[in-house]
């Protein structure tokens, strides 16, 4: 059995589920926001791990070969603020379900794409940069600091050609609207002590002009694309472009491919979406998204990433 943990609005999953359905793979999609409608039971000393779907209690521990930990939903996630239980109840319910799902890790000989803890570790930019350097990638000059003096000195060293970005997922959720913090160029005079001391940021050499790459690694497969946000090769963050951006399948040097595979292995991942930039023939590592998006590449760049994910999940650990 293949278990996919996500939410029912995650349409990227649908591409993989369709492929697994075509292949006749025994697949269970757990939309975790809906778990409160699916009774569960785990027993000891004769270990069993069961979840009810469509009125049938499925003994997952006896058939599980792989888990895709995608984008779990939260109980009550889709209710309006007025309809939701209190924050205390929400937190408690979420924590209990999360812990129950983590219990899947107790089932032996299962492939995780990716292991929950490894995913979390790999989200840390400092760990990413260290791992990328270890496998041979060049890094842009980088200073991670909460000290305005250090940040300004770093900016001066690079003649002000510096970008600033968040150290961790910069999604800011308000009641009525979400906000995101992309990568931005920053002038040294805007770096002020009081606001920077509240949270450290990544200050990094601005590499320009450049060609950007998104390289998706799944098991033994690799899917490099170039990212072209129009004619401007001096842009700061391609994710700000919503319409003009083009993704095109491409080749990268074999050494770069090897480093991408090595990086995913170094972080003990199976899947990773890696952002690189190239200038004057040199490739620089920017970041890896251990749970990055890819569905838009399926359509636009004509890459059958869903099939690759399905194959990886279907193989499991391939224990002889």
């Amino acid at each position, binding site marked *: 059995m293949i278990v996919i943990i996500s939410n029912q*609005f995650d349409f990227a999953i*649908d591409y993989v589920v369709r492929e697994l359905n075509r292949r006749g793979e025994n697949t269970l999609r757990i939309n975790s926001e809906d778990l409160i409608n699916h009774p569960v039971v785990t027993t000891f000393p004769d270990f069993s791990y069961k979840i009810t779907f*469509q009125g049938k209690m499925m003994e997952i521990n006896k058939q599980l070969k792989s888990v895709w930990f995608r984008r779990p939903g939260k109980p009550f996630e889709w209710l309006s603020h007025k309809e939701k239980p209190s924050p205390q109840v929400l937190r408690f319910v979420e924590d209990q379900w999360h812990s129950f799902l983590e219990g899947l890790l107790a089932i032996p000989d299962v492939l995780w794409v990716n292991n929950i803890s490894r995913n979390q570790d790999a989200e840390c930019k400092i760990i990413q940069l260290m791992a990328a350097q270890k496998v041979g990638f060049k890094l842009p000059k980088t200073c991670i600091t909460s000290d305005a003096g250090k940040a300004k000195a770093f900016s001066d060293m690079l003649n002000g050609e510096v970008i600033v970005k968040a150290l961790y997922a910069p999604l800011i959720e308000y009641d009525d609207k979400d*906000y995101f913090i992309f990568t931005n160029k920053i002038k040294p005079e805007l770096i002020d002590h009081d606001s920077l001391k509240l949270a450290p940021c990544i200050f990094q050499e601005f590499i320009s002009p450049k060609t950007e790459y998104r390289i998706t690694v799944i098991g033994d497969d690799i899917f490099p694309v170039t*990212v072209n946000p129009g004619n401007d090769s001096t842009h700061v963050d391609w994710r700000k472009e919503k319409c003009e951006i083009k993704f095109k399948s491409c080749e990268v040097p074999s050494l770069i491919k090897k480093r991408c595979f090595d990086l995913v292995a170094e972080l003990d991942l199976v899947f990773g*979406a890696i952002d690189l930039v190239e200038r004057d023939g040199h490739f620089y590592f920017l970041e890896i998204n251990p749970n990055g998006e890819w569905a*838009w590449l399926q359509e636009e760049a004509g890459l059958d990433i869903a099939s690759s994910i399905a194959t990886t999940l279907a193989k499991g650990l391939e224990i002889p």
Partner: protein
Amino acid sequence: MKRSTEPLLFRYKQGCCSPSRAGVQMKDEFRYDEDIQMAVTLEDGRWVPVIEMQDDPKKPKPITKKADIEKGDDQKDERRWR
């Protein structure tokens, strides 16, 4: 002088195109089909997977919290579950 209570990066925050969590609802034209474990939409009198729906500008599109993510803003995951 008033001290800052917002981190430096907040001055760069940009509104997401996709709705907030509470703003996302599965509309009547769409539903989740437990049999095939995919979202489906009504097309010419039959339910078809959303990912196979015809590109008709007049037809409503499913609204997901990932409208931004599909363009590369892929860090909406919070730590693990929360």
